């Protein structure tokens, strides 16, 4: 009987080679005429979240009161990352800063995309899936906005920005 996905959650795996693989993939995409590789990376993150949530989820409700803690928990449990968060209520933005992003470490001269685009997709999908199942009217949904800074761009940290909506506001 092989491992189950539930069992995999209990262990860690080293990302060094997989991190490199993401950049080799983006290079492959660009060399083969895929111009929206950013969207492809975000979609990869969304797909990961859709499967991941079948085996683990941090909470049943995400509102403005606990959104920071929920995102911190996802980053810590899934990515082993300790992040700092800021919420800009005026712009409806959540800014996540990660100094040790598992998907970005080195700057490549020929690549202008950050591996943590995957995390924009992953986190937003995770939160939105939890809220979809929740009956709370003040549930939050998240959308990927942009990777503002990245170690892959030569910055000291990765800064991922999400847009959020409360309830059915649109």
């Amino acid at each position: 009987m092989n491992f189950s996905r539930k069992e995999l959650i209990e262990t860690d795996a080293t990302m060094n080679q997989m991190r490199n693989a993401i950049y080799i993939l983006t290079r492959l995409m660009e060399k083969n005429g895929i111009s929206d590789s950013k969207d492809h990376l975000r979609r990869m993150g969304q797909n990961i979240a859709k499967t991941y949530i079948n085996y683990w989820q941090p909470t049943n409700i995400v509102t403005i009161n606990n959104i920071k803690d929920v995102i911190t928990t996802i980053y810590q449990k899934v990515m082993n990352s300790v992040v700092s968060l800021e919420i800009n209520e005026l712009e409806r933005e959540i800014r996540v800063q990660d100094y040790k992003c598992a998907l970005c470490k080195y700057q490549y001269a020929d690549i202008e995309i950050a591996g943590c685009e995957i995390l924009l997709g992953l986190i937003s999908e995770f939160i939105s899936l939890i809220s979809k199942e929740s009956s709370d009217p003040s549930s939050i949904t998240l959308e990927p906005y942009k990777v503002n800074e990245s170690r892959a761009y030569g910055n000291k940290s990765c800064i991922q920005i999400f847009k959020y909506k409360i309830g059915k506001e649109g």
Partner: protein
Amino acid sequence: MGAFQWLMKKITKVFGRSTNALFYTLLYREILKEVNEITNNEEESLIILREIGKRSAYESCERHSSIFKFMPGNPKKVLDYFEILWVVVFGRELEDYTYEEIPKEESKYNDYILKIKNCPICAGYGQDKEDSFDFNKVKDDKSEGLACGLCGMLESVANFILKTKRNDYRIQIVEQKCIARGGECLQFICKIHDYKEWKELISSRTEERISTGIYFEESLEEEEIVQETKLDIIDKLQDVISIDKLEEYLDEPLESIKERVSDIIRDKLNMEPEHFFDYFRNYEDDMIRIIGYLGTHILNEYGGFLEKLLKNEWFAKVFGYLFKQLKEMTLLFIPLDVIRDYNNLLVSFLDNLAPPEMVENVKLFTGKDTVNFLFEGAQIALENFGIDFSELKENVWEELKVERENGLISSDISTIDKTREKVPQIISIIQEFLMIINDILTLPIRILISESHYGLKTAINSVVSEEEGLYGSIRERFDNIFDQIQEIRK
């Protein structure tokens, strides 16, 4: 498992950047799906994924090439170290596997078949809607399975080691059975090729890749063969302190070790041991300081680990604090008889190796002198690595981590809180180190008693067995230390 296999596994696991294994597996799956979107052909996608795995591992190896310089340079031994390759590549233990040697006539090396019962890459594949890569469309029996990317990584690491060790042989690792494709286990076949065979193989692989019509960059394999790595001091020392040879040293008694040291001095320095040690006559105290100094620097030769560690201000302080405590404790708490045993061990080592006059001078040192000289030398080396001993102060504080009721992790953690969270782990590490020191300090008596009968290894394992003896105890403590470091790094 050998001590150094274990150590390498621990080091690579603790100091790699890890994520949750499920995330790793799902990311791997998504990469394959994206490749398939480009190729629209499942068989070709597997070929491309293998190539991606190979290139990604090669990139990592190049960044950390020094760590591979202590690995064995013989293809068969590289395969013996497959467990390490697995940990280097996948970051988790290789469990429940069998290893079979397939005799190959007219060839220097046999083939090897490895059957791994549990494959983390295939874990639960097919149970979720997003597992959309369809293996039913893979018709060619020769096609690999889901772990082909992992296979490429393993092959790349194995061949990087052989290249680093300037060996002309290369290893081909192919996935023969895949659980996601219906196999009962993950099965690899490992074939060892000489230069000519390997060249033919890589050109056929390149043709196969080109036939997919997928644009990739220049071939990595050709670069692998012709590229030369620069020679450094580690290359020169490799013959003497390769990991696999260190295991052999542990099997030999003191006299054999002395013989080996003599041979090294004769081979590398072209002089008789007595002449070599004669340089230190009347400067015996400096010689002992140099041993402490060089011992610390040699520790750092393993990938510059110590130096890198001490660049971190926090680690430098903890290490300096530990060193200071060790220096004081050794003289305060260790019975003088034990320290004297160490001195006798040094005298026994130098006897017949160094000039008699020098041996007599060393005999005049008290055990306390010897220990102080060693610590003085080590301290100078640690100062070189960045520990400012003048700034050290005593810090012993502990705070238990408080779990929140809702299971979520607070986003409002200050830097001080983050540091405090790590304190229990740091204290545990210090405690484990102190226990290791206590364990090791009982060693010289055992060595002196058993030297004439069983040798060094008997002394190390003199309690009951390898697992329960001193070696087992130290290994267990290091296991705890690595676990704590891993916790801190999370």
